[in-house]
């Protein structure tokens, strides 16, 4: 493995980790609302949240490209007002990974929250704890294993993301080259040996992540 290859592995790992952290507050909030509240149109929200899981990743990538491009609703604002570009930068990689892995976090966290006895939250309130305190001292600690399992799953998904990433970030060497994008390019260029080395790293990373997530879930069942 060359230093360039290690750079790609390192980039992939830290952007994936960052995306997992970025989706955490938003994902937990959504998961909690879906677990604890009911309202008209809840099923629509549930479906929207699951869409990136089911839609072709390139389709999701296309939507992101149109939204965050310089002529898009969000991208246009960012470019004109803040001189801030998303498409074809590492921020696009972060965006693609976040959107694609968010549904996995929400699924795990929602189930974890649903398993927390609401009576415990209620009694905490009678003891004087406001909503935020109840959330952070009762709900989250009791749901912790499921949440962490969800985070690991999201991280593993981010590691392997391809379709949406190539749409919005391209494959710019040194800037947006992830493991999967590089493997794809290597195959196109006929650099099979290179591709297989990176493939090995991908498998090891994914295996470790999923295995650890399953381990945590099993411990939770006890």
């Amino acid at each position, binding site marked *: 493995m060359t230093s360039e290859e290690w750079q790609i592995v390192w980039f992939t790992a830290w952007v994936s980790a960052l995306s997992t952290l970025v989706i955490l507050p938003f994902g937990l909030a959504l998961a909690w609302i879906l677990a604890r509240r009911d309202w008209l149109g809840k099923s629509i929200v549930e479906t929207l949240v699951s869409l990136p899981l089911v839609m072709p990743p390139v389709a999701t990538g296309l939507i992101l490209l149109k939204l965050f*491009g*310089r002529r898009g609703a969000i991208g246009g604002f960012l470019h004109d007002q803040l001189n801030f*570009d998303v498409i*074809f930068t590492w921020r696009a990689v972060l965006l693609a990974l976040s959107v694609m892995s968010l549904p996995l976090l929400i699924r795990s966290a929602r189930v974890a929250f649903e398993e927390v006895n609401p009576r415990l939250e209620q009694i905490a309130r009678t003891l004087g704890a406001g909503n935020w305190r109840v959330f952070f001292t009762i709900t989250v600690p009791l749901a912790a294993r499921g949440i962490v399992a969800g985070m690991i799953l999201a991280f593993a998904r981010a590691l392997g993301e391809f379709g949406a990433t190539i749409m919005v970030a*391209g494959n710019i060497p040194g800037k947006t080259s992830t493991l999967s994008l590089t493997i794809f390019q290597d195959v196109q260029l*006929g650099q099979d040996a290179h591709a297989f080395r990176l493939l090995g790293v991908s498998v090891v990373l994914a295996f470790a992540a999923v295995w650890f997530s399953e381990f945590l879930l099993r411990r939770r069942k006890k």
Partner: protein
Amino acid sequence: MIAVMGVWLLSLYSAYSTQITVFAAASLTDSLKEIAAAYEKQSGDKITFNLGASSTLARQIEEGAPADIFFSADEAKMDGLEKKGLIDTSTRKSRLGNSLVVVVAADSALQIQSASDLTNTSVIKIALADPKAVPAGVYAKAWLEKQQVWPAIEPKVVPTENVRAALAAVESENVEAGVVYKTDAGISRKVKVAYEVPAKDAPVISYPMAVARESKQPEAAKKFLNYLDSKEAGDIFKKFGFILRD
């Protein structure tokens, strides 16, 4: 039920008429489609296309993809296949040429008068077909290296999968400029040519074509290849802006 009948009829049709698959460089998309339409009327044969970066297409042929004709955007990809014995060398011809242009969005105020203008800070990102392999990108890199601005430009490069993708990036305004073929700029209304690379600065662009050795209908393929070499086809190519050589 109707769908099943339709599929059966279609398969009958293709059993009786010959179908030729042409793997061609992305920059040839529009011209080839027009030429193929004319040929189909004349001959009754059917032409299907697999269009993309010549590097990707060459790789697919190496892996056994069923191509009858390979129409590449540079000699190197054809040479690679010839070395592996995958083309019928007796059919190889190179008559088409092209030129490079720098394009910007149609309403852009950017002024590019030379290669070094691309190093300005107002040009933040430049779209090129992947300079590692795709012919359009390889040509562009050769030009910029010759002008000795490549090291300054390389960090700004957004490599795309093929030359049409580079064009699309400029159209969407996600990059400030792109280097594509003159023929590509010609078909898009959303971009305008900011600078035409003079022939003396640019490398020689050549589009070789050949029949694949593993073709299942080599006679039909040769027939179409000759048509591609004909005056009729040549006129269409010229219309789109390609250069014809003898």
